[in-house]
């Protein structure tokens, strides 16, 4: 085992950890917010919303994330240079950066998986509670915000830790589109020093520690929310 490289690359690895966490948090937040309407329209929406939402979830869940990421980065990214004047516009630094494509791809992926989960959660809220809310005279929006959504979120909370750990385990794919996250930092270390295993083992341990903390945090969070069983 050769760990001489480690002190020299600590800053790179810390930056990599930071990018991994940014990828994780931003995709979970954006994807989680998108998941609510995607789940909801599949339960109550008209067919022209229900159908695209269903198709979106099937597509996301039925294709590898790697292909989705490459489709967005190489596929959609390859269309931009054709637009005249784009290279000089303020958008170009963003459109050139693999990081933003990774955030988009991971967010859409999380939205697809969670949209399906939210669909089940919305269906799982007891009918009587919604009827009671309507009977009190709440508008549909109020029923959603005060009863349906909070109850549905409470239902998915136990599964959320697992989903977020799953999302964390997808983030290393970002290194295939030039993002210098933990996995990207590892690739750089390996190509600089020709050391293969130690950096891999090192980041594997970091991912395990992150998984441990996510699981712990959600156990704590779940105990904070009162629930009568």
């Amino acid at each position: 085992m050769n760990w001489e490289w480690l002190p020299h690359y600590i800053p790179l690895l810390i930056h990599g950890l930071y990018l991994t966490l940014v990828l994780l948090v931003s995709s979970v937040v954006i994807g989680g917010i998108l998941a609510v309407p995607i789940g909801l329209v599949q339960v109550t929406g008209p067919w022209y919303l229900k159908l695209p939402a269903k198709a979106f979830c099937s597509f996301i869940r039925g294709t590898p994330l790697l292909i989705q990421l490459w489709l967005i980065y190489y596929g959609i990214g390859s269309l931009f240079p054709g637009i005249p004047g784009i290279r000089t516009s303020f958008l170009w630094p963003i459109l050139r950066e693999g990081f933003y494509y990774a955030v988009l791809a991971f967010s859409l992926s999380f939205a697809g998986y969670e949209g399906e989960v939210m669909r089940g959660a919305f269906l799982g809220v007891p009918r009587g509670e919604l009827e009671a809310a309507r009977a009190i005279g709440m508008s549909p929006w109020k029923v959603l915000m005060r009863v349906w959504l909070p109850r549905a979120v409470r239902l998915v909370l136990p599964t959320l830790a697992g989903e977020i750990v799953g999302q964390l385990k997808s983030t290393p794919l970002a290194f295939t589109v030039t993002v210098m996250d933990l996995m990207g930092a590892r690739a750089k270390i390996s190509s600089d020093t020709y050391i293969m295993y130690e950096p891999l083992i090192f980041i594997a341990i970091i991912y395990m520690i992150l998984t441990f903390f996510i699981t712990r945090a959600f156990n704590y969070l779940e105990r904070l929310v009162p629930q009568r069983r």
Partner: protein
Amino acid sequence: MFLAAAPLSELLSFGDKGYLDELMWGAFATLQISFLGYAFGCLLGLFGAIGKLSGSSFTKNILGGYTTLFRAIPELVLIMLIYYAGTNGLNQLLMSLGFEPIQINQLLAAVFVLGFVQGAYSTEVLRAAILAVPIGQVEAAKAYGMSSYQQFRRVVLPAMLPYAIPGLANLWLNITKDSALIAVIGSSELANVTRIAAGGSKLYLVFYLLAALIYLVISMVSDQFFAWLERRVRRGQPKLA
């Protein structure tokens, strides 16, 4: 806008200039890797589950470490670790025994790597399914004087399948998608073939969409199959709701 190397109709054809035959072979390789890896993973999972349920405390600790580690580390990291460590370790072993180092078959390496990752998940799925079998049924089998193999083959296995199939179906869908990760270490399965086709033709959007569509078809056909399989293993059980 597109700087395509040839007309679309030519690129999307079989034969020398077109990439369609390559994609088809890629899809075939993906299915092959997935299927063999899945079979290997299920086998590992079966032994893992039995070991976790009835092994010595030493076996239980080892298996507990295996399932925890392999489910907490990203698949991509694991695949690279096992692939490089596995091929390197094997060659070092061969050299220390006085043999020539060998070029390890890509397909076998991919199957081994994916199967090993898959085994951790299927251990947990099968363990939970075996635990879900009512203990009275196993006791009844014992009371008849069945050997432990007979108990497993005639009672536990058929009774646990309804609980195991949904989890195993998910694992199959996961391995077909995880097999795309093998592209990172280079192989001839669908994701890597698509990358080559897209890079060669500059038609990134077309080829990645096409590959996504092929994966989607695999997923949807598998869904139908597992729905049928679940109905079949549930025959004779009371209908729920």
